[in-house]
């Protein structure tokens, strides 16, 4: 009788401990800080200036046909000082660095019409594109300009020969952006912005976006990012609420360093949010639609946060909740 009771007690304790362990694993071990939006009249800005970590650890890049090559981020300088602050650089800068070391043979040009560096040949082959994601993300057919994708420690990069039709569409998309920006006299007006909830969507048209310098640690003053779109909507009275969190790490991911959009409202339109949900963004538009990941808003969009995606002048941007 006593043995049976003791076993039952033991089982109960094991159950409690198991539950506690399971619960501790469910609770996200994230370092998050709420960043209030400061409203000065119509102007919206971030109340504090936070800096992320500058790349400092040995990284690697996979170049198809050449293998996986290592690089030392402390030795890399940016080829876009108009975009990046000292110490920050892009995926393209890694290639330039490897070319300088003689590990690859890279020929490139800055294409004024596309406002980006274009790889002419790499190891005597042409038609290159890339994909990348930060720690915790996954490859998702990026269409971010190669010299605008900021490098972080622990990220995955693959450079490969792209389907010529897709590469052509990406370049056509870039060209359209540059033409659109030029037609707005250098300003950025986005024809269509869609904010989706699980049951509804809000569409904004012809929204002028201004810079808020949300990442002065990474980008030069005046560089527009995806986050500027939401801040601009707020300033124009089209959003009533915008909740941001700075996350430096998450469960199992040691380096995040980005602003997460965890709440947004526009009057009665207040899409649901919970602690595990974040609002993610995706470039859209007719030219590029067929060349994005079929499963848009995938994991890498959680990690390529809106404050780190510089924009030129997209035709359309969509925002959608992703719940982890």
């Amino acid at each position: 009788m006593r043995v049976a009771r003791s076993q039952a007690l033991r089982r109960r304790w094991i159950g409690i401990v198991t539950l506690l362990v399971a619960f501790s694993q469910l609770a996200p071990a994230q370092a998050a800080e709420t960043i209030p939006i400061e409203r000065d009249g119509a102007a919206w800005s971030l109340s504090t200036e936070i800096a992320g970590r500058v790349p400092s650890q040995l990284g690697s890049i996979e170049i198809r046909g050449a293998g996986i090559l290592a690089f030392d981020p402390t030795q890399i300088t940016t080829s876009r000082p108009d975009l990046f602050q000292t110490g920050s650089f892009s995926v393209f800068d890694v290639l330039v660095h490897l070319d300088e070391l003689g590990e690859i043979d890279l020929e490139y040009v800055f294409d004024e019409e596309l406002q980006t560096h274009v790889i002419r040949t790499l190891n005597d082959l042409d038609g290159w594109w890339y994909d990348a994601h930060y720690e915790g993300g996954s490859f998702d057919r990026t269409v971010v300009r190669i010299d605008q994708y900021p490098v972080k420690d622990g990220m995955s990069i693959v450079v490969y020969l792209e389907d010529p039709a897709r590469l052509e569409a990406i370049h056509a998309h870039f060209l359209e952006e540059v033409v659109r920006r030029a037609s707005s006299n250098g300003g950025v007006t986005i024809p269509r912005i869609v904010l989706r909830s699980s049951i509804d969507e809000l569409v904004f048209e012809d929204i002028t976006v201004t810079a808020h310098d949300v990442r002065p640690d990474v980008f030069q003053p005046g560089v527009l990012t995806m986050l500027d779109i939401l801040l601009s909507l707020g300033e124009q009275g089209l959003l009533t609420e915008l909740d941001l969190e700075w996350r430096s790490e998450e469960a199992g991911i040691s380096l995040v360093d980005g602003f997460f959009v965890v709440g947004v409202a526009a009057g009665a339109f207040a899409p649901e949010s919970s602690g595990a949900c974040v609002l993610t963004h995706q470039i859209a538009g007719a030219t590029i639609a067929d060349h994005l990941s079929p499963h848009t808003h995938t994991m890498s969009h959680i990690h390529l946060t809106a404050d780190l995606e510089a924009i030129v002048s997209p035709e359309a941007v969509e925002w959608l909740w992703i719940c982890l």
Partner: protein
Amino acid sequence: MSWIILANAKKRKARVAMTVAGIAIGVATLFALLALSAGIERSLDREISAMGANILLLPEGCPYELTLALMQGTDAFEHIPVDALPAIESVANVEVAVPVTVGKAKVNGQLTSVYGTTSQILEVRPWSVDRFEGAVVGSDVAEKLGLSEGDTLAIRLYNERQVPITQILEPTYGRDDTFVFVSLEVAQDVLGLPDQLSAVLVRTASVSDTVSTQSTLGRMSDIQAVPPSDVFERLMELFASVRQTLILITGIAIVAGVLTTMNTMTMAVYERRQEIGILRALGSTKRNVFRLFVTESLLLSVVGGAVGVVAGFVATLFLPRSSGFGLQATPVFSITFVAICLVVAVLVGVASSLYPAMAAARTEPIKTLREL
């Protein structure tokens, strides 16, 4: 009653034709939607079944994107190291584990999907091929590039290999028709993926133990084990959002058909007030008049429905064959779809005739006869 309807139709040919066209557009859209949706569902089901696997072993990442990439023959950038294969093969209940490396390369100068695998592919694919050597070429590729058995293929991307064609597959009416199958070693060399696998197709010995086998395989590091049925359901969910938009467009087209018919019938009632008056004076009851207009509307709708079904059938033959997942989808035609379309046409007829028929039935014979 039928001669009255026929006489009126002959008298107002243009209006009748436009009404029939209005209904036909809605029905044609509906028929095309049904046929294409069923085609996409069947295409996805067939493609996933054609893999011949009970379990798909994929690298880490979104399983749906990885499966789509595998079906489309494109590289998804995430891979399983080839070293993992012996451990996979040693798991109990794994009967066949087929390693696969896929990607697009230039085959005789044309960008084509290259599918690297081993002779074990013959155990999971329903091909009438007795040996897997050199290059086995899908029927569409062979036709497109003008290939025949004995020719040598130049396959090039990061490296170039020359491979003789040993067999051209009979048409499978699936993605296999668009692939060039070569050895794993050739594919990995050309695609710049040494010792990397896009997926492993696993067939289990005992289907009833598949779930536990999947669970064991899923615990291996950097690998996810996915049942193909899950992928199918998820892809159909993704397609459902597209279908909802199409249903909305179809609904608008059908409502437009209802309004067109209603407008025509209302105008007909107005124009035929004197005729109605005479009918009533000659002893026709309100019910007879009501029935006359409902029948006329129903006939127009049924004719519109039949024209719509034919138009929808023809339209689907000219529409793009893409399923939205980069797969080919041939529309499926069924007698059920024809029945659904005709029922919808009848409902359009009934809905659009009620108001004009009631207005006709309410016509006062004395009043209209005075207008003569």
